[in-house]
């Protein structure tokens, strides 16, 4: 497994797509999480109106270091999940597209060892995404606070660690979903298409339909879906302005447990497909 990990790390760390996806996440964070918001609040329109009745200066508090965890998760947290799904689907689908899956399987490691190495490397890359995401969010918030001449108090270290861990779990879960789809469809395009459709559309449509039944079991069912739990985990860190928030459907602990189970299920599903399939 160590050999497979080394090989996968060598090839994925040099793959431009891996860092382009990470770059998109960070760019989105800077632009949508901080830059555009700060510009809108620094130079408000004449008819500026906020539903909470807050002034631009009051709203700017969201952009300062004390709120960098909440603001960054609230702003673009779900995008990280989508990009991680693409990462996983690309890491596997391209191997089929280039035919390199047969190159890998005719070297020494078993198929399961090769998969384990791949999962390990994806875990490392999504960890890098998570750390870089919060490091950049902290930097952006510090820069804005410095420009605005505001004192820079920070969230508790444990909250920052929890946020990094939570986002890693979410990114990891969706990347493994992408990997499982990649092995299932043996290509990137279908895996990415189906994965994103599920992430952004299918779960939403499903619950809109179910909510029409106005039955108590709907909310019970909701608690077991990956997207709902990922959202609940993000919401568990709170919102800068609470009235914006929806109430999380499950607690943070429950969300972590469900996402961890999904991650394990995607890994086992990938292993079953990898073991069973012929490589044509």
């Amino acid at each position, binding site marked *: 497994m160590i050999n497979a990990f080394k090989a996968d790390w060598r090839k994925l760390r040099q793959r431009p797509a891996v860092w382009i996806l990470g770059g998109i996440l960070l760019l989105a964070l800077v632009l949508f999480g901080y830059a555009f918001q700060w510009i809108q609040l620094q130079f408000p329109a004449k008819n500026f109106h906020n539903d909470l009745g807050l002034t631009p200066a009051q709203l700017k508090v969201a952009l300062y270091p004390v709120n960098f965890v909440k603001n960054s998760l609230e702003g673009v947290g779900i995008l990280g999940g989508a990009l991680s799904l693409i990462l996983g689907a690309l890491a596997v689908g391209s191997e089929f597209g280039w035919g390199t899956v047969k*190159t890998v399987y005719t070297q020494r490691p078993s198929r399961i060892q090769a998969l384990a190495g791949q999962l390990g490397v994806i875990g490392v890359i999504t960890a890098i995404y998570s750390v870089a995401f919060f490091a950049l969010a902290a930097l952006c918030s510090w820069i804005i606070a410095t420009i605005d001449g505001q004192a820079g108090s920070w969230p508790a270290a444990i909250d920052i660690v929890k946020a990094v861990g939570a986002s890693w779990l979410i990114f990891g879960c969706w990347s493994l979903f992408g990997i499982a789809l990649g092995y299932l469809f043996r290509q990137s395009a279908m895996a990415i298409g189906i994965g994103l459709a599920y992430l952004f559309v299918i779960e939403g449509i499903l619950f809109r339909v179910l909510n029409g039944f106005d039955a108590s079991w709907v909310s019970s069912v909701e608690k077991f879906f990956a997207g709902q739990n990922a959202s609940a985990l993000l919401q568990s860190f709170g919102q800068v302005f609470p009235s914006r928030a929806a109430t999380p459907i499950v607690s943070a602990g429950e969300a972590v447990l469900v996402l961890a189970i999904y991650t394990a299920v995607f890994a086992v599903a990938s292993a079953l497909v990898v073991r069973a399939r012929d490589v044509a």
Partner: protein
Amino acid sequence: MTQTADNVVATHSLTKRYGQAITAVDGLDLEVHHGEVFGFLGPNGAGKTTTLRMLLGLIRPTSGSAQVVGRRPGDPAGLARIGSLVESPAFYPYLSGRENLKVVADYAGLPQVRIDAALDEVELLPRAKDRFGTYSMGIKQRLAVAAALIKEPELMILDEPTNGLDPQGVVEMRSLIRQLGSGSRTVLLSSHLLNEVEQICDRVAIIRKGKLVAQGRVDELRGQASLIVKATPSDAARQSLVQMLGQAAVSGVDGTLRLSVNPDRAADINAALVSAGIRVSELRPAERTLEEVFLSLTGEAA
């Protein structure tokens, strides 16, 4: 399956079916001996690539069994001793040739020090820094051979290694295969180039529609050599030769006769014909080529 210490590859009733309708490989019994260059021949769609993929563990057989370097196909310890090129060379297009070999070495758990030697052996060192995606097919094939060589394998499995190559590339690959098979290494070569196989291989197997139709030494398959005779008058020559050798040993049309006899008898036959007043204008030994054997067994061009 005769699994002896001398067999590097041995299969017993190896079969691969896709659904009920398609039988890609049908009860194949194959034996590749240690140190030989073994040619694996068959028309397109005969099941050659499917067989090689089963030997590498990429495809699971429907029934039957196989042993490769004393292991079951796909066993990690066995794969460590096998170098392979199956169909087209497959590497990461954004990595250089050298980086691709590092990836292969990592997977195989091999030291990176072998990489430059392997690149040198296939004369790829000058292009080692270039991305794989920029390589021509010939260079890609050579990189695939280098990837196999870094394992210092005791068995090389080469599936159509000259596919897609231009004439210069074919010449280079032919030379490389000869080099690979010159030592104690066993080479299992699937190829369409019968002339090549005839020159390089010690033994061959021919399959058709998934079934083995012949297996043996090249000279055995070509069969007993014969004699070609041109003589006048031809009718008298035929009559004389039939009397001498028997009806079954004489065939041919348009004045050219093929005699199914040992070529060592050429002088006796010549003397007999001349003494019968028959003028002999041509008398030479003739052997069937592997291509003729292949065509007679498969009824198809390779």
